[in-house]
C-alpha cells in the first residue's frame, strides 16, 4: 500500500499540505490499512465489485460520521472465521477494534483483544503486510528475543475522567516553587542582604488602605526584611495592631510632631521623620539596604532584587502618578502632548553607563492647579527628587564602617539647623557617585502616588465598628432607590421567594449589571 512520504522528522513541523505535495507517491485516501492488503489478492473481475462496494461504504460513512468500511462486513458476516489465522482477518479485527476505541473512551479489554490476536497470527504482526512480507519479517526476527513493542495500530488510551486532580495541581505548584527557589539560589543574588524599609505614616482615613497594600508587597519580598514605621503624632494602637498582624519584623517609632494638613508642610515633616529613622538605624547599628517606601507608593518585586546590588547609594527610576482627581481634564493641545515628558524621576546615564544627570518630573502643565491641602481634589506633585527613588547602604550611616567612602557626610551634620532635607543627596559631598540601578534607570521599579481623603473625613478607629451603626434602612428592603415600576415589581417577587441574603446579593449584582446595560443603552441613544 502506498503512503505519502512521512519521515517522522518532518511531521512535527510540516503542514499537512506540504507533506502530501512533497511526496512522490500517491497518498491513500480515506481508506486505511487493511483494505488494500485485502484487495491485493483479489481477481480483477471481483475488484470492480469491491470498488463499488467501497464507494458505497464511503458514502454511508459520510452520512454516519464514522468509518463504515467493507471490513465491517467481514466482522458481521464471518465471525466464525475470525479464529482462523489468516493475516487479512487479523488485520480486519485490529482495524475495527480501533474504530471503536478512538470514538469512545478506551478500554483495556479492546487492547488486549488486539494483542491476543496478534499472538495467534504470525509474529511479529503488521497490518500492512501481505503474506510474503510476514514470512520474511518472521524469518528476520526469529533470531531476536521477542520485543513487547508491537508495530501497527494501537488503541488510544484515555482515562475515564481526563481532568486535573486538584491535589496534584497543588503538588505541581509546590514543586515549581521549590524549583524557582533553587534557581534563585543558584543564579540569583549570592548573599542576600537584609532590607530595611522606612515608612513615615500617620493616622488618617486612608492609612489602613495604604499600609495594607504596602504590607502585602513586603510580605512577598524573598529577603529578610525589617519594616521601620515612623508614626507622626505618636504611636497609635490601631497602627500597632495592623502592623502586628503582618507577620513581619516591625520597628514602630513614634514621632512627636503631628502631621500638618498642608502638602508643603507634610512633605517637610515626612522628610524629618525619615531623617529620624535614619538616626535610629545608626543608633541600633542595623545592617542592610535601606529602601524608602512611602505608604501610598506601589513597589514591584524587581525593586527588591535590584537594591541588593547597591554598594553605598543607589538611585532608581520612579514613575510619578500625579492623578488629577478632578472630573474635568485640561484639554492638552497636540504639541503639548508631544512635549509632555515622561512622568518619571530618576537617574539618567550617558552611553558608557555612568551617571550623567537626573530626570525630574515636569510640573509646568500643572502650575496653579496643584493641591495645597491634604485631601483636596487636585493633583499632588512630587518635589525635585523623591526619597523613594534612593537606596542606601546602612553602613553609610554608621559612625565607623570599613570601606565607607569619603564623599559621605556624617549624619549629624545633616538637618541640624532645621533646613529642609529634600532628598538624600544631601548626605553626600559628591552627588555624582550615586549608582544608577534598574538597567541604568531604564526600568521603572516603583510608582509614586499620593491619594488622601479629606482631612476631616471620619473613619472608625482601627476599622472596628463600635458602637454599632444606627439603622438606616430595615433589612426587609434593599437600600437603593426604586428605579422603574416593572423592575421593582420583578425584584419584589424574587425577594419574596428567597429570604436568603446571599441569593439577594446575586440578584443585586445581576440587577446592577442590567442597570449599567441600560445606562449604556441610554447613552447610545443620545449619541
Amino acid at each position, binding site marked *: 500500500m502506498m503512503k505519502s512520504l512521512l519521515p517522522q522528522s518532518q511531521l512535527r513541523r510540516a503542514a499537512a499540505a*506540504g507533506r502530501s505535495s512533497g511526496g512522490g507517491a500517491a497518498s491513500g485516501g480515506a481508506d486505511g490499512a487493511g483494505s488494500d492488503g485485502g484487495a491485493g489478492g483479489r481477481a480483477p473481475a471481483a475488484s470492480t465489485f469491491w470498488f463499488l462496494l467501497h464507494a458505497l461504504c464511503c458514502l454511508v460513512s459520510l452520512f454516519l460520521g464514522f468509518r463504515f468500511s467493507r471490513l465491517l462486513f467481514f466482522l458481521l458476516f464471518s465471525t466464525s472465521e475470525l479464529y482462523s489465522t489468516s493475516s487479512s482477518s487479523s488485520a480486519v479485527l485490529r482495524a475495527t477494534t480501533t474504530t471503536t476505541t478512538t470514538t469512545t473512551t478506551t478500554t483495556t479489554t479492546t487492547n488486549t483483544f488486539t494483542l491476543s490476536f496478534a499472538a495467534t497470527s504470525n509474529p511479529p504482526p503488521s497490518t500492512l503486510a501481505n503474506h510474503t512480507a510476514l514470512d520474511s519479517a518472521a524469518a528476520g526476527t526469529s533470531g531476536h528475543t521477542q520485543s513487547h513493542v508491537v508495530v501497527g495500530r494501537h488503541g488510544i488510551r484515555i482515562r475515564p475522567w481526563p481532568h486535573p486532580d486538584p491535589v496534584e495541581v497543588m503538588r505541581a505548584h509546590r514543586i515549581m516553587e521549590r524549583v524557582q527557589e533553587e534557581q534563585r539560589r543558584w543564579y540569583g543574588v549570592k548573599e542576600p542582604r537584609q532590607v530595611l524599609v522606612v515608612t513615615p505614616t500617620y493616622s488618617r482615613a486612608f492609612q489602613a488602605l495604604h499600609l495594607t497594600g504596602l504590607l502585602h508587597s513586603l510580605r512577598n519580598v524573598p529577603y529578610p526584611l525589617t519594616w521601620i514605621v515612623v508614626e507622626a503624632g505618636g504611636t497609635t494602637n490601631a497602627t500597632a495592631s495592623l502592623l502586628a498582624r503582618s507577620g513581619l519584623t516591625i520597628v514602630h517609632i513614634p514621632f512627636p510632631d503631628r502631621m500638618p494638613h498642608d502638602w508643603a508642610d507634610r512633605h517637610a515633616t515626612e522628610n524629618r521623620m525619615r531623617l529620624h529613622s535614619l538616626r535610629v538605624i545608626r543608633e541600633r547599628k542595623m545592617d542592610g539596604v535601606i529602601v524608602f517606601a512611602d505608604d501610598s507608593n506601589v513597589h514591584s518585586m524587581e525593586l527588591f532584587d535590584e537594591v541588593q546590588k547597591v554598594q553605598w547609594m543607589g538611585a532608581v527610576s520612579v514613575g510619578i502618578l500625579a492623578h488629577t482627581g478632578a472630573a474635568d481634564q485640561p484639554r492638552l493641545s497636540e504639541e503639548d502632548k508631544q512635549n509632555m515628558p515622561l512622568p518619571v524621576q530618576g537617574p539618567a546615564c550617558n552611553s558608557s553607563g555612568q551617571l550623567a544627570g537626573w530626570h525630574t518630573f515636569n510640573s509646568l502643565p500643572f502650575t496653579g492647579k496643584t493641591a495645597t491641602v491634604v485631601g483636596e481634589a487636585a493633583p499632588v506633585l512630587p518635589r525635585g527628587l523623591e526619597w523613594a527613588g534612593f537606596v542606601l547602604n546602612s553602613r553609610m550611616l554608621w559612625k565607623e564602617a570599613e570601606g565607607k567612602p569619603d564623599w559621605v557626610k556624617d549624619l549629624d551634620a545633616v538637618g541640624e539647623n532645621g533646613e529642609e532635607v529634600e532628598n538624600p543627596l544631601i548626605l553626600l559631598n559628591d552627588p555624582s557617585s550615586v549608582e544608577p540601578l534598574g538597567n541604568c534607570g531604564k526600568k521603572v521599579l516603583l510608582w509614586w502616588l499620593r491619594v488622601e481623603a479629606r482631612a476631616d473625613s471620619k473613619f472608625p478607629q482601627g476599622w472596628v465598628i463600635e458602637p454599632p451603626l444606627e439603622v438606616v434602612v430595615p433589612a426587609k428592603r434593599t437600600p437603593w432607590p426604586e428605579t422603574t415600576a416593572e423592575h421593582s415589581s420583578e425584584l419584589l417577587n424574587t425577594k419574596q421567594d428567597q429570604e436568603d441574603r446571599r441569593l439577594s446579593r446575586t440578584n443585586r449584582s445581576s440587577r446592577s449589571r442590567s442597570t449599567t446595560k441600560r445606562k449604556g443603552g441610554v447613552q447610545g441613544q443620545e449619541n
Partner: protein
Amino acid sequence: MMGSRAGWRRRAAVLLLVAVSLSAVLATPAAAASAAADSGEAGRAAEQHSERISGSAGDVLEDNPVGRLKVFIYDLPRKYNKKMVTNDPRCLNHMFAAEIFMHRFLLSSAVRTLNPKEADWFYTPVYTTCDLTPAGLPLPFKSPRVMRSAIQYISNKWPFWNRTDGADHFFVVPHDFGACFHYQEEKAIERGILPLLRRATLVQTFGQENHVCLKEGSIIIPPYAPPQKMQAHFIPPDTPRSIFVYFRGLFYDTGNDPEGGYYARGARASLWENFKNNPLFDISTDHPPTYYEDMQRAVFCLCPLGWAPWSPRLVEAVVFGCIPVIIADDIVLPFADAIPWEEIGVFVEEKDVPKLDTILTSMSIEDILRKQRLLANPSMKQAMLFPQPAQPRDTFHQILNGLARKLPHPEGVYLQPGEKHLNWTAGPVGDLKAW
C-alpha cells in the same frame, strides 16, 4: 594517563561528597543559614549547582579520545559525498546532517591517520541521507544501492575491507531506522539491516531494544540540531521556571494516519486526549517563535515517540535544562553507556500515559532538583551538540570515545584464510543494481 585519571576520580568523589552534603544543607528551610553555607563552600566546589555525570562505563563523558585510537578515512569519489552536498545544500541543516559534519570533523581531527596500516578504525564517508524531496524529506530508496556501491569501491581498491569483512569499519547512518534504510517501520523491519553492514559498527540515531534495526555494538548518537540557533535563544538562567510540562508538536498525523492509533503507537493522541484540559500541561500543535525560550521556562519537556522513537527534542531539552520526559517503550538513548539517562530523564511507558500527571507530580523534589543539577552540567549539554568547529567533549568526541571503548578489537575480527561472512547477493533484487 591512568594515574591522572585515578586522581581525577578521587577529586570527583570529593566533589560528589561536597555536592551531597551541600544538597543536604540546602534542604533546610532557613534561607539565611543556607546562604551562609553557600558562600562558605562556594569557593571550594567549582560549580555547586551541577553534578558530575558517570554512566555504566564509568566517568567517561570528559575523556579525550586523542591518542586512544586512529581512524583512516577512505578517499571516495566526489559522487558519494561532496557532490551530493553541492547538489542540495539543505543536507547541512536537516536533522540528519550528522553524517556530513562527522566527515568534516574527522578530516581535520588529531585522531586521523594517513597510514591505513596503523589505523584501528576505518571510516567510509558516504552520505546516504542526502537525496531530498522538494519539501526537504530524505528519500531512502536509493540509499542501499549507494551504500553497496561505496562498499564495493572500497573493497576493490583497498584490502582492508576483505581482511575483516568490515568488522573494523564504521559508518554513520543517521536515518529514521538507521541502516534499514526506510522511513516506514514495517518496511524497515522487513528489509532489516543491509546485509553488507552485518559486521561493521553503525553510528546511528535510532535505538530500540530487541529491534531488527539496532545491531549490537552500535553507537547511538543524538540527532543534529543547529547549535548556533539554539545558543542564540538563551534567556537569563534566573528566569523562573513557571511552566510545569511543555510540548509542541503533532498529536495526530492526519495526512498519513487519519484514524489515529498508528502514529506514535497512539501515545501522542493519548497525551492530547488526557491532558488538553489540564492547565499544568502546556501542549499544543503551535509552532511559536519563542519555542526555545519557552523550553527554558519549563520544568518538564515531553519527548514522546513519533514515527520513530528518537527526535531532536531530547537534545533541545538537555541544552535548555528542561527535564526530558521520554515516552517511547524500549528506546535506547544516545551514549547510553556514558550517560546514565535514568538519572537524568523521566521514563514513562506508553501504557502509563493517562497517568502522566500523577507520575510527574508524585516525584520527590530532591529527585527533580538532582536531575536539574545533572542537566546543568556543561559536559552533558556539550555531549549533545555538534558545534562547528568541534569543541572538546562534544558529540564528535563522544563518538570517538565510544569507538575507543570498543578497542582492542576482539579475536574474531580478522578473517582466517577462506573464511567469509558476508553474502554479497543477499537482500532485495532492487538493491543489487549498480549506482
